[in-house]
């Protein structure tokens, strides 16, 4: 028996991330100079002693599966438990793709039951934050809740963009308001749920039989529980939390890493051994800064060769930046090669893209940062030449 089992929803397609997710599941998108988005949640599980975890995949999972591998970087290559990737499968009654977050868990009831857990933690793999899930579990047990939902205060004027939890004293939830036009509260759901498994199991089965349901936790399961007056509580989180669901927010969250006062995970991990971030790391040599290279206010990973100028940027492993190149407020994914005299500003360059000498690409301050890969590179280069 495991006290608490984790279920990580990593099936999202992440359409708003554009080219970043055209061949790759959102949780597998590179983030933070060294990591993939899902590493932050996986590391939270490792740091919270949640050693048994199901990762639900369905969209382009090859990269994700390879990244997770046996789970070793997170010490989840366990004999009993550890990490298991769960794709949809054919059972006795034929096969079904996951049709919603609740359905994804429903289809894996057998998986969960074999560990006979008392509590199930449902999280998703597409946010950047550091949380010790033992804290939410502790509150969940203390309040004898059936569900505990992690919430964060958002600015009032943004509240209508979120799922808002309306609570009584003691954070007991009486209403879940999905993107309310006139929010009564500014506590937004972070999509992190701690459930008492026996209760959740019952609601999942009922929900699966309901043909009108969209099989979603926020839209169906939580409202059904509230209707039955079950004890549901909010768990207030006040650390750094960032959705990276759009190109702009992805870029902003990256820039946060360069600001030591933002409270973003990398600075925290340096100071606090219990908040390390683990990833499936390539075993690369340290990076090399040549005589012509300069680097200011930036993060650079191993395996790079830097001969140009890097400012306010995040550089992943195995990047080559040649002489007189000038990179500002940009993100270079693994294996990118930047030619001589290239200028990039507010640009995200995807894995293994080679940028020829002299190319200049700028996104303006008010524009969305530009995402470049080998395929669309020629469009931007052409644009530049026209301007010239």
């Amino acid at each position: 028996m495991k006290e608490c089992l984790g279920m990580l929803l990593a099936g999202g397609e992440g359409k708003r991330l554009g080219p970043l997710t055209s061949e790759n599941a959102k949780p597998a998108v590179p983030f933070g100079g060294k990591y993939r988005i899902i590493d932050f949640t996986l590391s939270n599980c490792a740091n919270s002693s949640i050693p048994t975890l199901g990762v639900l995949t369905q969209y382009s999972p090859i990269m994700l599966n390879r990244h997770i591998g046996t789970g070793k970087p997170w010490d989840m290559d366990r004999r009993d438990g550890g990490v298991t990737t769960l794709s949809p499968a054919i059972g006795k009654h034929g096969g079904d793709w996951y049709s919603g977050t609740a359905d994804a868990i429903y289809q894996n009831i057998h998986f969960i039951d074999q560990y006979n857990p008392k509590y199930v933690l449902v999280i998703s793999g597409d946010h950047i934050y550091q949380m010790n899930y033992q804290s939410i579990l502790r509150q969940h047990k203390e309040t004898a809740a059936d569900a505990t939902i992690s919430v964060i205060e958002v600015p009032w004027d943004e509240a209508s963009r979120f799922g808002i939890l309306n609570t009584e004293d003691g954070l007991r939830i009486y209403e879940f308001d999905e993107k309310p036009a006139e929010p009564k509260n500014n506590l937004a759901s972070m999509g992190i749920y701690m459930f008492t498994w026996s209760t959740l199991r019952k609601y999942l089965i009922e929900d699966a039989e309901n043909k009108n349901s969209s099989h979603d936790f926020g839209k169906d399961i939580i409202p059904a529980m509230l209707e039955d007056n079950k004890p549901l509580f909010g768990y207030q989180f006040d650390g750094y939390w960032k959705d990276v669901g759009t190109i702009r927010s992805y870029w902003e969250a990256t820039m946060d890493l360069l600001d030591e006062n933002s409270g973003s995970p990398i600075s925290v991990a340096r100071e606090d051994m219990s908040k390390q971030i683990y990833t499936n790391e390539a075993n690369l040599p340290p990076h090399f800064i040549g005589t012509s290279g300069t680097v200011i206010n930036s993060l650079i990973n191993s395996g790079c060769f830097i001969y140009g100028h890097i400012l306010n940027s995040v550089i992943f492993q195995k990047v080559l930046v040649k002489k007189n190149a000038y990179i500002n407020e940009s993100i270079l994914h693994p294996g990118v090669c930047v030619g001589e005299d290239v200028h990039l500003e507010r640009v995200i360059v995807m894995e293994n893209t080679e940028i020829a000498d002299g190319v200049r690409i700028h996104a303006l301050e008010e524009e969305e940062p530009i995402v470049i890969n080998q395929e669309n590179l020629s469009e931007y280069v052409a644009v530049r030449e026209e301007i010239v």
Partner: protein
Amino acid sequence: MERMMGLINLEHEHHVFNELTYFRNNASLPFAGRYRLIDFALSNMTNSGIEEVAVFVRNKYRSLLDHLGTGDSWDLDRRHGGLFILPPDWNDPTDRSLGDLSFFHNNRDYFYRGKANHVLVSGSQFIANTDYKDAFKRHLIHDADVTVIYTDVDTIGPEHQAYYRVETDQDGWVTQMTNDHRNPNVFTGVYIIKKELLLDIVDYCIAYNYDNLFMNGIKERLQELKVYSYRFEGYHAFINTTESYYRENMKLLQEQNFLRLFQKPFIRTKVSSNPPVKYQAQAVVNNSIIANGCIINGDVENSILFRGVEVSEHSQIRNSIIMQRCKIEEDVYLENVILDKDVHVKSGQRIIGTKEKPYIVAKRQVV
């Protein structure tokens, strides 16, 4: 199928590292920003397709045990084969073996257990990034008893003195191994030997009270054995003195050397969870090798920084090697210095060594 097993033999390695090896074996000496010397021998073995490696080590092996762990960083955490660190622990009162023969004699089980029928033997002080697949192929084609790997060095330095020079006939068979200072064909300490023959030589050496398997069992019996030679071409270093240690580190700051040593296949080392290097607003870094986990706000030139080093503002580091987790406060000046792990340099300090004899600060000192 013809296969090799690996043996890293640290017995009989000559070294003069002083402070740097008070608490660690020479094989665990940090090198090139994130490696230990042994990583090169070990990675070259696994890159050659070897799935079981033994390490013969007599003392100060704690940091080695710690570094190698379960062997997982080299994919050697196996149920069959894998990594075996074999310190001396012998309890047979009838055992008369001497020198490295004691290791061979008391670890016969290791050799019998594996499926391999050839053994690749190496020390830890020859640094290169290669695999021995081609050498093994030639060893098999020529049906050699032993194949010794040598390399042609440009300038003979003191670090090569401890290694034999190889003389061959025109077909590549070894005729003599000498100490001839003018011969640039330096034996690398790496050789491939038939397993059965190795065990025969062990018996022979013990019977005659010899204490050095290679010297007594192979080098002195070249006429009786079929010893072939294989020439290694590529970037390499021999490291067995503080002087060669410092010089070979510094040589890597010439980009073409760094590239030649670290092109694929990659040398593997123990992984850590250090974040990428953070360059802060006042960082000025030039011609340097910087490992993950560092935070730099000072001026670093021609230097190697290991993982997790902090350099504060207005500090300058020149031609230096700064090992893991050192902390350099503000207004420090370091030139030709080697700081061992966890050294803390206080604000305002100024330390200058010479290129020939860098100033060394031992582990965990506060200066």
